[in-house]
């Protein structure tokens, strides 16, 4: 019997509440919530003790080698400290409980189902809690990177008078780039992917909930590891970590290498779990042509996360071995090659660009139909475009080596593959434009952010096509032009889309409404000052100012000062967001309507707050969720017991009785 047929037969049966999911822990021991159980505090204690132990062990090992004991610094001790600190952090939070229990065949015990805020400080199998943990985590990353950006722009106010020394300046630049890149790889997949994907596909859980929780907690550990570089004097390589500078750097480099590898593990875990969930836990009827376009973007991203990130982990491992075991992977004089790092790094690094871009595209494509009240234009083309971008992204990495370490005869090939990738990217862009065409657009805050993505990404994308061209690439390599390009794609594309997504889904995630006026103020200040900050950088770059250098020509001061002042105002725009967030969620919360945007998405058809098990009954999906304003549109899903999600536009599936307050454009009917 199918689920749909079974529902008809059993719609009158009253079932007991479903059992909540289970989490790690030794079987038989009672759950002990409270300050004596494992939580953030015990994780911090574990990390501190782990660091001390690892550092001591590293010193014991390193003291046997004269080249270490005479060097004045000890990479082995620092690496040992950082690695054991991460292990202690995971041990302290409870990530290791279940893997250890499994060694003796124990099953996980039921998770203590808490509604207390303290659950956000714990290791939990609830994907919604993990999603919100990620929201706070990535915002912490983002604002840390943002403060470092303010420091950079402060230094660049004057070409000759300095706030920082050259070493401090490059350490700040490197830290800013690394923190931001690590944040950007997880900024959508972590918070929105984990929170929304199971709901969007009609699942009650993710496939591997503990792997999901692991991904968050190791992500946070990676944040502290990367931040620790500042206490070791930083690292001079920028976020790309190029050798031979990498091999010559001090112990701050270990924070970069260990941090990148640790966060890489988290990225792999997050991508692995979500990919398996999407493939296996789609509700009945949720065929590949019916899954929300945001889920397509997450699936394509997860494929990149799971397959490209191991290369980063391997590259980081080789770097760690160079510094600790004294191997010579990146030391040319001893049979290694600094270009090996460049190849490995960019084999991950270029797919990473699309790890960052694709979820942004997904958010925009998901939100446009809701605010345009019309179906997503060419859904299958958008999905194909995302898959195409993901596939092609593995074949373009050598364009980062046009200036170094590449056989010149190979340049045309990689120029071609790089230009090719603009085609599926263009598909997605055109799908968005097609959806906007002749639409009655509702200019709500999330939609404003989506429209900004079109504007920003056009500039970022077109300059990307310029940069794929070898002559232009060679001309502007290493300049502010490149910097402006990738800030337009990553910040102008991904971060704007992320904030659009936050404003859109926070009412569902928190049950509270964000203040609309403050949201608009945030948007306009962010949009205007973003462009005022980064557009001049194209000119600065074309006029010859190199990246990562704290002195520049006198004639560029006016443009730099303009960019710096704009950057400070851009930074201030985020204070409006923080104020809005704190005010709307904590100080004066206003309950959000059940479906404030009248969306057809399955995630909006659950109660708020969403129950532990997401859906009372596993939904049966009947069509894709984009049939807005269509006459005789099919019902989107059967939520069980005859409850249908329809557009409300003369749907044949609608019947008279409606159990929920009718929202214009969307009805849930019995």
């Amino acid at each position, binding site marked *: 019997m199918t689920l749909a047929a079974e529902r008809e037969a059993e719609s009158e049966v009253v079932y007991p509440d479903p059992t909540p999911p289970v989490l790690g822990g030794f079987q038989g021991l009672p759950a002990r919530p409270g300050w004596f159980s494992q939580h953030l505090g015990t994780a911090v204690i574990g990390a501190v003790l782990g660091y001390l132990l690892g550092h001591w062990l590293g010193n014991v090992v390193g003291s046997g080698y004269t080249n270490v004991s005479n060097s004045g610094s000890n990479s082995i001790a620092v690496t040992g400290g950082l690695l054991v600190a991460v292990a202690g952090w995971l041990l302290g939070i409870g990530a290791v409980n279940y893997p250890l229990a499994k060694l003796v065949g124990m099953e996980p015990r039921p998770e203590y189902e808490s509604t207390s805020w303290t659950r956000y400080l714990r290791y939990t199998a609830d994907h919604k809690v993990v999603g919100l943990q990620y929201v706070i985590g990535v915002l912490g990353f983002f604002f840390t990177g943002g403060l470092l950006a303010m420091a950079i722009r402060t230094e660049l106010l004057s070409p000759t008078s300095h706030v920082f020394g050259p070493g401090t300046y490059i350490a700040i630049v490197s830290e800013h780039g690394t923190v931001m890149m690590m944040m950007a790889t997880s900024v959508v997949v972590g918070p929105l992917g984990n929170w929304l994907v199971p709901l969007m596909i009609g699942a009650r859980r993710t496939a591997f*909930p503990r792997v999901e929780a692991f991904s968050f907690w190791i992500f946070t550990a990676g944040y502290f590891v990367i931040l620790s570089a500042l206490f070791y004097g930083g690292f001079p390589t920028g976020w790309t970590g190029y050798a031979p500078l990498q091999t010559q750097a001090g112990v701050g480099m270990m924070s970069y290498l260990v941090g990148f590898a640790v966060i890489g593990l988290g990225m792999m875990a997050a991508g692995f779990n979500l990919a398996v969930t999407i493939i296996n836990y789609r509700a009945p009827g949720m065929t590949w042509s019916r899954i929300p376009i945001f889920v397509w973007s997450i699936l394509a991203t997860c494929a990149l996360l799971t397959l490209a990130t191991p290369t980063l982990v391997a590259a980081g491992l080789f770097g760690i071995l160079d510094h600790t075991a004294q*191997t010579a992977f990146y030391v*040319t004089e001893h049979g290694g090659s600094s270009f090996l790092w460049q190849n490995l790094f960019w084999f991950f690094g270029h797919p990473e660009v699309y790890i960052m871009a694709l979820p942004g595209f997904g958010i925009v494509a998901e939100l446009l139909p809701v605010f345009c009240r019309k179906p997503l234009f060419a859904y299958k083309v958008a999905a194909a475009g995302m898959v195409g971008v993901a596939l092609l992204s593995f074949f373009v990495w050598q364009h980062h080596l046009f200036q170094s370490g590449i056989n010149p005869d190979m340049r045309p090939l990689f120029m071609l593959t790089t230009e090719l990738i603009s085609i599926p990217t263009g598909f997605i862009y055109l799908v968005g434009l097609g959806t906007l065409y002749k639409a009655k657009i509702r200019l709500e805050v999330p939609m404003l952010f989506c429209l900004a993505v079109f504007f920003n990404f056009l500039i970022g994308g077109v300059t990307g096509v310029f940069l794929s061209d070898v002559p232009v690439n060679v001309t502007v390599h290493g300049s502010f032009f490149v910097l402006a390009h990738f800030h337009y794609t990553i910040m102008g594309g991904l971060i704007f889309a992320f904030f659009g997504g936050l404003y859109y889904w926070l009412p569902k995630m928190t049950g509270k409404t964000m203040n609309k006026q403050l949201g608009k103020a945030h948007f306009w200040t962010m949009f205007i000052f973003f462009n005022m900050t980064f557009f001049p950088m194209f000119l600065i770059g074309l006029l010859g100012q190199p990246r990562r250098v704290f002195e520049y020509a006198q004639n560029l001061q006016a443009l730099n000062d303009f960019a710096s002042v704009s950057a400070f105002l851009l930074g201030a725009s985020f204070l409006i967001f923080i104020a809005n967030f704190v005010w709307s969620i904590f100080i004066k919360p206003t309950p959000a309507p059940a479906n404030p945007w009248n969306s057809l998405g399955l995630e909006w058809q659950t109660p708020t707050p969403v129950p532990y098990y997401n859906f009372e009954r596993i939904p049966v999906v009947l069509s894709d969720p984009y049939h807005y304003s269509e006459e005789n549109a099919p019902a989107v899903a059967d939520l069980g017991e005859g409850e249908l999600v329809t557009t409300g536009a003369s749907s044949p599936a609608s019947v008279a009785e409606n159990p929920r307050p009718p929202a214009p454009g969307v009805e849930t009917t019995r």
Partner: protein
Amino acid sequence: MTDTADKPLFARTPEEREFELRAAVGSYWTGGRLMIGMFAFLFASLAFAYFYLKSNNSGKMWRPGGITAPTGIGWTIFAVVLASVLLASYGQWRMRSGSLLDWEVSGWVAVFGILLAVGLQIWQLTQLPFFPGSSGYASCFIGWAVMNIMMLLGGAYWLETNLALCMRLRRVDPEEGTPATSNGPSAQLFRANVESCTYFFGFIALISALFWVFFYLI
């Protein structure tokens, strides 16, 4: 895999239970293959490093003097890993025929075999005739040793947790039949897990063979 899909505990009806069980079994299948993909890219990075440095031969320092890691230990490690993988595969084949004991015996021997291989790999690191940074080959070999230890320990952990689970499942409900034959959800999940684990062991054998050729034959 260290984190297995839970039993389908949310389901309210037989159909929902069946749906969630199918999803959980599918997750083992997909997860096992995806994990192989992840490890494949990890080792592909090492293989890239190997051939990149070999073809570059910077300062003729790829492998000065044609020096090789201790060949006898390398052969032994490879033979032990291969035997363990064959045993694990044989055990799973026997389990499909309903003989759980055969799987358990071969599984435990395979676990100890893999742990022996890890021990040998560590011992080999203490017997190297070269300094880690003395050449490109030496660097790649150290990288291989570290990654191989991680992979072998991961595989041994996965198989051991299945063996431990099997022992517990037999104790819990002897009436229901053995985990090899029962149609209960736990048994189905267990078999899916074992199948993915054995598949991963096949991958271990493939990787071991490839890098054995790289480091000892060419």
